[in-house]
């Protein structure tokens, strides 16, 4: 029997000729990631293993992003513990505030994750890197500790669900709408323990930034990982971020899938997930008019350059509605600079929105945009659980950067086609000055 793409990568890194769904294997890790919340726990556990050094100084990445720049004394202590450990162990990929950003935007940008690699991270959205054809999955702090000590991780080989994409997204629909639409179809445990493998002719029309957004939210369907095939766009992206060699894996023709879901991209509307689950997805037409107190654009889901371009294209020359707070967070310092060069920051700030340093910030109710009781936000992030962005009596709606920007102008959830060029859509994601931006 053939193997899925994820199974092939796991088999290769476990040193086995073949694996089957359900097998428990110990696999080598190409990169192990921790952040300022999960690494301090992992460091404590790492000490208990008795290992004097990490398995490979170039294969551990530590990123202060959740509560950094330090939001309070306790957070400062956590960041300090991580910084000191990185220094002590000589960890090459420790990123200080000023060079860092949100981990899942940062690692690919730095070329630290390439196709065919096996990555674990003590952060559930580590599944983001499936966008480039890597097997990557979120684990806990103890797993990270064990991986830092041993260079390996225990994995149960996942079964897979195949998502066959056809056609092209139309209008203002984007990768974010596609993944919200899919989670709405299959539910928050619709892919529990499984791989979501995306394939089909529709993949070619998705930009790398969109693939990152889609793979990022695989965990919101309960999946172990989400993964895209390696194609021309992936290869040219890989060449732009790293000179390292990498391996390409493809699913076998007779790979076994538990289910196949066909998606016609042209039929995916701009989609909004209502509180308090990402699966409460509704087409924009059924969401319009919900009044908002805050709009957040950013995060590891939608804080990339294309997201900022789309948001800026709608905000430019318009004003954020009176009484609404609009906060924009670029994913990394590099994205920040690119946004400056392209004039996006001016469009965003000029419209009356806040443009901040890269941080997870409000995404997890950390800092810089916490909601009060009864407040309602629309956010381009990935989770809308009870209390996610603040008070347990607040509400979060999830949507794309286009819907977010249009809603910030309208003061209520709004279809971007009603404010901006109805046909403009994804063209707004292209670079304004011809630089950067893989399509």
């Amino acid at each position, binding site marked *: 029997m053939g193997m899925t793409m994820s199974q092939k990568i796991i088999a290769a890194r476990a040193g086995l000729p073949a694996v089957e769904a359900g097998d*428990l294997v110990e696999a080598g890790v190409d990169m192990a990631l921790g952040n300022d*919340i*999960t690494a*301090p*726990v992992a460091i*404590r*556990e790492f000490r*208990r*293993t*008795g*290992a004097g050094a990490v398995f490979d100084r170039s294969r551990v990445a530590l990123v202060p992003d*959740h*509560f950094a720049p330090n*939001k*309070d004394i*306790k*957070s400062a202590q*956590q960041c300090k513990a991580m910084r000191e450990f990185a220094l002590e162990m000589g960890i090459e990929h420790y990123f200080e505030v000023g060079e860092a950003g949100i981990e899942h935007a940062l690692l690919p940008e730095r070329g630290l994750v390439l196709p065919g690699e096996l990555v674990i*991270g*003590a*952060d*559930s959205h*580590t599944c983001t890197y499936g966008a480039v054809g890597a097997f990557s999955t*979120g*684990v*806990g*702090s*103890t*797993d990270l*500790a*064990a991986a830092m*000590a*041993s260079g390996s991780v*225990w994995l149960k080989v996942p079964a897979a669900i195949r998502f066959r994409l056809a056609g092209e997204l139309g209008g203002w629909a984007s990768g974010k709408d596609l993944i919200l639409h899919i989670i709405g179809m299959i539910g*928050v*445990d619709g892919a*529990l*323990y499984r791989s979501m493998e995306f394939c089909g002719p529709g993949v070619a029309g998705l930009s790398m930034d969109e693939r990152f957004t889609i793979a990022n939210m695989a*965990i919101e369907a*309960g999946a*172990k990982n989400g993964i895209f095939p390696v194609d021309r766009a992936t290869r040219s992206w890989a060449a732009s971020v790293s000179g390292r060699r990498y391996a390409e894996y493809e699913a076998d023709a007779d790979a076994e899938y538990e289910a196949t879901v066909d998606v016609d991209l042209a039929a995916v509307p701009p989609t909004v997930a209502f509180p308090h*689950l990402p699966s409460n997805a509704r087409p924009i037409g059924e969401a319009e008019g919900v009044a908002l107190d805050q709009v957040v654009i950013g995060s590891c889901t939608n804080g990339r350059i294309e997201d900022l371009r789309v948001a800026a294209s709608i905000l430019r020359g318009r004003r954020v509605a009176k009484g609404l707070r609009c906060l924009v967070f670029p994913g990394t310092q590099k994205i920040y600079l690119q946004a400056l060069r392209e004039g996006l920051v001016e469009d965003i700030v000029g419209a009356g929105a806040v443009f901040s340093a890269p941080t997870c910030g409000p995404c*997890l*109710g*950390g800092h810089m945009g916490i909601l009060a009781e009864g407040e309602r936000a629309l956010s381009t992030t990935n*989770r809308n*659980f*009870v*209390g*996610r962005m603040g008070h*347990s009596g607040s509400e979060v709606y999830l949507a794309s950067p286009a819907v977010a920007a249009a809603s910030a102008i309208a003061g209520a959830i709004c279809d971007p086609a009603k404010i901006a060029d109805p046909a403009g859509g994804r063209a707004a994601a292209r670079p304004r000055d011809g630089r950067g931006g893989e399509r």
Partner: protein
Amino acid sequence: MSETRKAAPIRGKAHKYGDNVDTDVIIPARYLNESEPAALAAHCMEDLDPAFARKVGKGDLIVAGRNFGCGSSREHAPLAIKASGVACVVAESFARIFYRNAINIGLAILECPEAAREAQAGDELELDLAAGKVRNLTKGSEHGAKPFPPFMRSIMEAGGLIEYHRERLARK
């Protein structure tokens, strides 16, 4: 953890919750600027059941529906539950990162859809983790649960993932 597995069955009172209990309500992010288990336990389940920390007793059980522990990878969630004195979480199914975190840190968990659906708050349950059995003493019923695969048992028998690796490193 090895003690709990090998020792007499766990017997405790059920605290019952629904589907998709996420780690944001198990331990809200506002408390993640520290990681001391006892401090976390004080806020365990706070955004779902503010009274939980006060009413939970040592040896009690959490019984829940599908996809328990979904959301973030924070190990603070099973740590908070374990430090609250909860002896085991019984659910219809677990989110995968929570599942592995629980095994890795030594919080007993059991997947048993029938028992999880049937149990009501306050029911007295008896769990035999080795044999994979759940008895509801209040209702007088018994259900089979999925026993753990040998590889996971070896982690649990070592006392958790760190102990497992410590033994292996020591042998090298």
